[in-house]
């Protein structure tokens, strides 16, 4: 017996999967001819395979219905995710950084703007007050040293409006231009409306499927109950 049993049993496993080279298979056969223990091992492995195949579990009766329902929900969720990317928590994390950057930029710009208006006030009696600031409140600021002006007769935004921005931003583009054509607000497109319709359709379909599933489950329960009741007198039918 050239081959040891441990090696033979390893080869037996591969032979069961038809993955043993022919020359090794020949040696294995010779070993098996002479070794009852390994022959028994082979029989056990084959029986184990039969047992696994013979006891395959069965799925529940309504598996496909529930799959269909879940698939519909998943499609709805996928459509919603595509439409509302901000619901994605990963996107939220990125948005936080982006928003923080924007907020920091706006804050810095505001501080700089304020410094331009108020900056000279810090320099008491320096005589370097810009010519553009003529209000009495500004004078108070100048006199009061580090106090901020409480009332500036001229709105800080007025200069901006005067220098080009013709209407408040909150009004949007609806007043702009004389073409009279409606300009959709930023962020809207025809495709997205279609997406909304798809979501709506999926919701309707989803409700329909949920109803069908519920009816089907009722039917199964009724049938089971009928079967339970029918057991005792089912054999009477054969008498007629």
């Amino acid at each position, binding site marked *: 017996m050239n081959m040891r049993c441990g090696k033979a049993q390893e080869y037996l496993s591969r032979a069961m999967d038809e993955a043993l080279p022919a020359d090794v298979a020949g040696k294995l056969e010779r070993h098996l001819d002479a070794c009852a223990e390994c022959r028994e091992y082979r029989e056990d492995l084959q029986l184990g395979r039969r047992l696994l195949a*013979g006891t395959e*579990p069965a799925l529940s009766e309504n598996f496909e219905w529930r*799959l269909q329902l879940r698939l519909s929900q998943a499609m709805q969720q996928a459509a919603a995710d595509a439409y509302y990317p901000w619901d994605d928590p990963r996107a939220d994390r990125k948005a936080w950084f982006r928003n923080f950057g924007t907020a920091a930029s706006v804050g810095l710009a505001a501080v700089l703007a304020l410094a331009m208006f108020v900056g000279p006030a810090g320099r008491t009696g320096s005589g370097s007050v810009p010519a553009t600031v003529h209000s009495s409140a500004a004078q108070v600021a100048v006199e009061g040293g580090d106090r901020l002006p409480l009332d500036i007769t001229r709105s800080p935004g007025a200069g901006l409006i005067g220098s080009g921005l013709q209407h408040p931003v909150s009004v949007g583009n609806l007043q702009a231009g004389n073409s009279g054509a409606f300009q959709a607000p930023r962020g809207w497109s025809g495709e997205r409306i279609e997406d909304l319709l798809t979501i709506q359709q999926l919701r309707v379909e989803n409700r329909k499927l949920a109803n069908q599933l519920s009816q089907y489950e009722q039917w199964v329960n009724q049938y089971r109950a009928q079967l339970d009741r029918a057991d005792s007198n089912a054999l009477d039918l054969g008498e007629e």
Partner: protein
Amino acid sequence: MNLSLDEHRYGSPSPARADLQDVRDEELIVLVQNGQKRAFDEIVARYKGRLFSFILRMVKDPSLAEELTQETLIRVYIHATKYREIAKFSTWVFTIATNLVRNKMRQRSRRPHLISLNPAPEDDEIPVDPADQEADPTREVQREELAALINAATAKIPEKYRIPFLLREVDQLSYEEIQQVTGLKLGTVRSRINRARSRFRQLIKPMLRNEDLLEELEKIEARAAAEKDNEH
């Protein structure tokens, strides 16, 4: 998917699906990519049993196994466009299933174990011992009971051996396919399957000489063969 109630009740394939029965898996998924939902029905019909069988023997809980089977099939549908025919379709499907199972088992192992005041035996502790069967020789060994014994034995194989073992024995994937699904080396796949078989044999050894059980197994096989003939 478009299953009518009657179709589901009686299990008869619709004519459209019958046309797809000879189509290869790899061609079916291309049809799914092109929006043909009937092709997906055929994929579900082909894979639901194999997936459930594999997943149940990994997670042991039937309702969780069904949930993960559905999740696998949903992912196949939603990500159908990501499939490229560089790997066999079955390899792709079982890779999805294996990853889902692993994640679920990892989540479970992280959960704290609660100590019950009335401890019930865990599945692992259920003895795989046919002595009970032998104690009452008149009792017929039912398929469910046999399945429970086999599942209990399978569950005792350590996870790293069980995955390649089940992929081979239950789902009939080749060594190369199992290598792709698990990411293991070919030699490791072979040796893990061999060790799992050896362990499984040790676990079921006491059952193997039980005449009732073998008789029941033969009945099950005869029924399965008859059902297969009826299908054809």
